[in-house]
């Protein structure tokens, strides 16, 4: 038996095994680390996704609550409970303007300016109070 060759073979086998073990171990650790990173990213994505869903849920909830508060029935009740006395305008309170509204407002503003310059007192607006009419 060629003992020299046998020993060399055993040594090589041992070295190869150690290299394989080392490389395998290293590769294993790398894979584990990679998977851990994947897992962390996936979990972060899942958490973000949940937060988006949560936010959408709250928006919907809030939208519903706002719509309920803006319901004409609720607003009418508020008007009464806060004694605001808000009423719908009646036709008698409305002045229909046939011509250009812009021209009328311009003329009105100019009249106010000229009146102020000439020292005249001009009451620009007269309010017809509606009060708490129903």
């Amino acid at each position, binding site marked *: 038996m060629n003992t020299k060759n046998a020993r060399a073979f*055993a040594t090589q086998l041992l070295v190869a095994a150690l290299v394989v073990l080392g490389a395998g171990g290293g590769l294993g650790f790398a894979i584990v680390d990679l998977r851990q990173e994947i897992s962390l990213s996936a979990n972060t994505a899942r958490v973000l996704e949940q937060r988006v869903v949560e936010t959408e849920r709250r928006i919907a909830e809030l939208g519903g609550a706002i*719509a309920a508060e803006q319901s004409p029935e609720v607003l009418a009740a508020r008007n009464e409970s806060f004694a605001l006395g808000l009423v719908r305008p009646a036709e008698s309170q409305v002045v229909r303007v046939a011509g250009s509204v812009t021209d009328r407002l311009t003329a009105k503003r100019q009249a106010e300016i000229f009146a102020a310059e000439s020292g005249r007192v001009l009451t620009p607006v007269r309010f017809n109070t509606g009060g708490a009419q129903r």
Partner: protein
Amino acid sequence: MTARGFASHSRLYLVALVVVVCFGVVAHRLIDLHVIEREHFLAQIQDTRHRVVAEPARRGNIYDARGDLLATTKTDITLAVDPWALQDKIEAQKFPARMARYEQEQRERRAQLAELLGMTVAEVEALYTPSWRDIPLEQDIHDDVVDGRTRARFVKFREGVTEEQFAKITALRVAGLTHERRFRRVYPHRELAAHVIGFVNKEDVPSGGVEAFADQYLKGLSGWREIERDGKRVELAQYRQREVPASDGWGVTLSIDAAIQYIVEQELEAIVDRFKPQKATILVSDPHTGFLLALANYPSFDLNEFGTTPLDKQRNIAAADLVEPGSTFKIVATAGALNEGLVTPTTKFDCTLDSIIYNGKPRRFMRDDHRYPQPLTVAEVIAKSSNVGTAQLGMLLGDRRLYDYARAFGFGERSGYPLGREEPGLLADPSKWSGIDITRIPAGYSIAATPLQVHYGMGVIASGGDLMRPQVIRQVVDAQGEVVYTFKPAVRRTVLERGTAESMARMLQRVVSTEGTARVAVIPGYEVAGKTGTAQKLIDGRYSARNHIGSFVGFFPASQPRVLMTVIVDDGKPPTGGTAYGSVVAAPSFKRIAEQLIQYLDIKPAAPTSGPAFFAHQAEGGRR
């Protein structure tokens, strides 16, 4: 001889052998796991870790014409208790002192929970008592004992918990508390437009109204994903395999305007308070497009309380109930005779007659409430609502043409109201008419129509001769608010020549004047056209002298109609004790609603003209 030290032959062989054996063992185990036992372990993993999770789509919203939310979807949380989980956790504590401390801590948290939910501590504690529930023997596989019962791990606690409440409850970290989240439909305006919107029941099945009609747009498409969970039932996000995201439902924008609907419903309430009718309905629409602006019925119901509402209240009276239209139907015979060129607005009729020979036989007229000694013109027949005059107009047309015009006006057939559950009405073929039908039908008796048919019948005159299809949905919008589909106005048919419609409109203006039957509906400065109707109710096969259906159908401004409105009050009882004429129970409501719509829709008063309003309007380029 060289010293070999550690690397002697035998040791090297031994190490090599150990390494080979180790690899061999690993290889064997790998083969065992991945080849021999593969199916078994895969099945086990599939069973415990693998789950298919459904992702329900969120149902789309319903908006009114101005974008106000009429129906939306929110999540609803059902709280439940798993009493066994708490017991398991307590038992898992290794030391008695720690166990007692944990138990005490949890008890305090449960007391806080009770306070948060407005319950007594005893009530909450009772839910935490471990219990069993019965199950079929073949399903009893969760524990080792097959005795037909299993641990109750989902004891329902409280339904309808809000997100805000739930956030507070979660912060308490009460052990054994579990929950289920699902979508629930809510209607922020409650009763508003209940019969138009419809509702979605607890099984997510739409019932009536827009909810059912537009379900294919609203419901969306549920998604799903395959997931794996760890031992604590937490999803392992990295193992998500396949994912089909849920696609939320589209939104639907109605032509109904919540503000107009509210005005109408308020008026309906006033009618109910004053006249205590059996039922009543009000319709408001745009005569040129056929789009409904408001539709309200009495009785009605709260959409959020559909489960406790009798089915009778859920019926859309406007589409599903039949009434004898009474004098509002007189427009058919009159318009028909005008359209055929048989009469002009100034043609006169003797309305003192009691009977007349028609098709060789004497026919008795329905009597008028007033006697008119002088012959009445066609315009006066309409203004004063003469039964005798209208019957003569019907006779001029003849059975077949009268029937054809009635059909053309939309009577006796479904109007195409999109939300369904619509009755076609009753209009018999002339071959089945009795001898007196020719005197009754022109006055709106011996036929039955839905309020929708009466409304759109008048719409023929308001629109300039076209019969429009009733429509409620204006647009469909996707989840991002982009318009997906727009519903266009649809003309069912052209019934009258434009000139005839204009003549009719002018004549109907006289109804709403001091000489007409609807003087209470006069709005100073505005041209209002309309027709009152009072029909005796058929009770036990006989026309009742005490029970009436009073109605008013009108539009304004007559020369350029913006609003078409119908008010029908069934069996109203005027507080003064008189007959529930249309001019008493319906026309005043028309006026009150119209006055508010003038402000809301900014409808200008008619320009003073010397000639007929229609001619003035034509000079401006005609109606669109």
